[in-house]
C-alpha cells in the first residue's frame, strides 16, 4: 500500500500510440481538436445519459428520492403490465399497417408526379407542401377535419353516401385517423421515391417497351426492383419513426387524457412519457426505453437481413 502511494504515477500513452510517429501524433491532436464539439457532446449528451438510463432501468427512482436497487424487476414487471402490451399493440398497429400503407401510397404519388403532365412542377409543390406544416399545426388541423359534427372529412364522405365514423371518439377509428394525418404529410417520402424514379435508366424502360412490355409490366419488372433500395430505406426510417411516434398522439387526444379514446392512441413513447413525467417512475420508464431500443435494433437488423433477397443494387 505504501508503495502504491509513494510511486509517482506518470501518465503514459497506450502501447499502440507509442508506436505512432511524430506526424501521426500531430495529426491525431489536430483531428481531436476538430472533433472536440462532437466529443464533448457525445460524452455529455449521449454516452453519459445512455449509461445512466441503463443503471436507472434496474432501480426504483422517483427523481427526488435516492436510487433504490430493483434488480431486473422493472423488466419483469413490464411483462405483466397491461398498459405496456396495449401500447405495444398500438405501436405495432402503426408499424405493420401505417408504414406499408404510407410507403405504398407515397410510391403511387411519386409515380403520378413522374408522369409527363402539364403543370408538373405545381403538382409537386402541392403534394410536398403539407409535409412542411409543423407537426402540432397539422395534427390540430386534422382534429378539426375529422371533427364528427363540423369536420369536412365526414361531410365529403357524406357526398358519396358514406356515413363517416366518429374518428376521434371511436377507439377503432383513432389510429386510422392518425395514419391519414401521416399520409397527408408524407411529402419527404414522395420526394425520395421521385428522385429514385428519375434515376431509373430510360434506356432500360425503352428497351422493354420495344420488346412489347406494357406500362404495368415495365413498372413491376423494372421500376419497382430499381427503386427497391429506396423502399428499404423508407421502410427502415418509417419503422424507426413509428416506434418513437409521440407528438401527434400527444396532441391528437385534444383536451382528454393521454391515450384517448380508451387507450387507443396510447403508443409506446406516450406510455413511456406518462410513466416518466406524470407518474415519476423514472426507473420503470428507463427500462421501457431500453426495451424500445432493443426492439428497434432487432427490427432494423431483421429488415436489413431479409431485404438482401428483395433489394436490387445497380452497379
Amino acid at each position, binding site marked *: 500500500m505504501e508503495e502504491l502511494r509513494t510511486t509517482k504515477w506518470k501518465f503514459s500513452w497506450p502501447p499502440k500510440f507509442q508506436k505512432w510517429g511524430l506526424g501521426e501524433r500531430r495529426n491525431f491532436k489536430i483531428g481531436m481538436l476538430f472533433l472536440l464539439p462532437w466529443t464533448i457532446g457525445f460524452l455529455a449528451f449521449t454516452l453519459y445519459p445512455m449509461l445512466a438510463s441503463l443503471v436507472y432501468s434496474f432501480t426504483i427512482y422517483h427523481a427526488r428520492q435516492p436510487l433504490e436497487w430493483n434488480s431486473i424487476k422493472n423488466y419483469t414487471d413490464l411483462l405483466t403490465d397491461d398498459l405496456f402490451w396495449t401500447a405495444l399493440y398500438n405501436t405495432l398497429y402503426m408499424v405493420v399497417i401505417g408504414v406499408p400503407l404510407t410507403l405504398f401510397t407515397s410510391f403511387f404519388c411519386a409515380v403520378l408526379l413522374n408522369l409527363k403532365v402539364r403543370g408538373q412542377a405545381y403538382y409537386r409543390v*402541392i403534394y410536398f407542401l*403539407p409535409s412542411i406544416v409543423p407537426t*402540432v399545426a397539422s395534427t390540430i388541423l386534422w382534429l378539426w377535419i375529422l371533427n364528427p359534427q363540423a369536420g369536412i372529412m365526414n361531410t365529403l364522405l357524406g357526398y358519396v353516401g358514406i356515413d363517416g365514423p366518429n374518428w376521434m371518439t371511436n377507439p377503432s377509428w383513432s389510429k386510422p385517423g392518425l395514419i391519414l394525418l401521416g399520409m397527408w404529410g408524407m411529402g419527404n417520402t414522395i420526394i425520395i421515391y421521385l428522385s429514385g424514379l428519375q434515376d431509373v435508366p430510360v434506356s432500360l424502360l425503352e428497351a422493354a417497351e420495344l420488346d412489347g412490355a406494357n406500362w404495368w409490366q415495365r413498372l413491376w419488372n423494372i421500376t419497382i426492383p430499381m427503386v427497391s433500395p429506396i423502399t428499404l430505406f423508407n421502410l427502415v426510417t418509417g419503422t424507426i419513426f413509428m416506434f418513437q411516434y*409521440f407528438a401527434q398522439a400527444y396532441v391528437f387526444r385534444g383536451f382528454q387524457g393521454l391515450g384517448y379514446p380508451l387507450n387507443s392512441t396510447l403508443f409506446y413513447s406516450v406510455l413511456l412519457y406518462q410513466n416518466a413525467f406524470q407518474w415519476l417512475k423514472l426507473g420503470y420508464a428507463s427500462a421501457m426505453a431500453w426495451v424500445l*431500443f432493443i426492439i428497434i435494433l432487432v427490427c432494423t437488423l431483421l429488415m436489413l437481413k431479409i431485404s438482401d433477397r428483395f433489394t436490387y443494387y445497380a452497379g
Partner: protein
Amino acid sequence: MTSANVPTQYPDVNAKSESNEARLRSRNRKVRGIFQSFMSHALINFVGLFFLVPFLWMLITAFKSNQDIFHTPPRWLPYDNLTVNINGEDYPLYDVQTPDGPKQLAALKIVEGVGTFVDPASPEKTFEYEIQQGETKIAEPVMHVSFRWQNFPDAMNRASRPSIDASFWVYFKNSLIIAFFTIIGTLLSNAPVAYAFARLKFPGRDVLFVIVLATMMLPYQVTMIPLYLLFNNFLHWGDTFLPIIIPAFFANAYDVFLLRQFFRTIPEEMCDAARVDGASEWQIFTRLVLPLSTPVLATVTVFTFLWAWNDFTGPLLFLTSPRNFTMALGLQDFQSQRTLIWNQLMAASTVFTIPIIIAFFFAQKTFIQGIKLTGSKE
C-alpha cells in the same frame, strides 16, 4: 455484284390499303394517348385534392366568424353576419317573420331568447320578438361571404389560456429565439467535425465515424430521462431555453454526416496544394472549404430551422411557464382547453406555418436537395 440485278422495290398495289392501316393505327395510338393523358390528369388532380383541401381548409377556417365555425354542413367559404350601421354602431341584420310578413331588421340585443329589433330605415321604433316560437324560429341572421381578418390579431394577442401573462406573439418570439440559436450552434459545431472526418487523416478516425453513425440508431427516449435530470436538477436550467439550445452547439450525427458527404466532393488536390503552401488545417477549413460549401451550409440552415421550429418534445419536457412556451407548445396548450375556438386556432396555426412556407419558396431547391441528400445516400 448481284445487287445490280435485283429490281428496285417500288411501291406495290397494296400501298394504299397499308397506309390506311397505318393511319388507323396512328389514330388509335393518338386516341389512347389522349385517354391516358386524360386519366393521368384526372388521377393526379384527384390525389392532389387530398393534399390541397386540408391546407385550404386551414386557411378558410382561419377567416371564419364564430357563428360560422360550427355551421352544419360546413360551408366552403367563410361567412359572417351582414351588419347595418345605425347611429354609428354596427348591428347584425336578421330575417324576421313579423306579423306583417318577413322583414329584414337589425338586432339591437338578444336577451334570454327575446330579441330587440329595429327597422334600419326607421331606427326610432323598436320591436320585440321571441326568437323561438314553439317549433319555428322567428329570426334568422343574414349571412354573407366575408373574410374575418380580425381572427389573426385576435389569435396572436391572446395566450393559450385565459389570464396568463403571455400571448402568441411571445410564443412566436420564443420559437424564433430558439430556432436562431439552434441554427448558430449547429453551423458552428458540425462543420469542423465533418471536416475532420472528411479530409483529415489521423489514427482512430474511422472507428470514431462508425460511433457517430451508430448514435443515429439511438432513440431519444433512452437519453431523455437522464438528460432531463441533468438539465433540470443538476444544472438548474429548468424552464429556460438552455436545455433546448445548448445541445445544438455540440454537433449531431445527421448534420456531421450530411456535411462530410459534401466536403468529400471538394477536390483533395486543392487542400493538398494549400498544405504545401504552408496553410494550417484550420486555415484550409475556414478559408478554402467553408467558402466552397455554401450550398450545403444553406441546406443545414434550412433543415435546422425546420426542425427547431417544429420541435415539440424538447419544449414540452423543459418549458413549464407559459411565458416561455414556443409556438408548438402554445398551440397544443390552446387546443387542449375545453373552449375550442377553431377559427383562432387555425389562424394561429397559419401564422405558425407561414415562416416555413416563406423559407420553402425562397429555398425550394435547397429543400429538395436536402431531402435527397439525407434520403438516398447510403
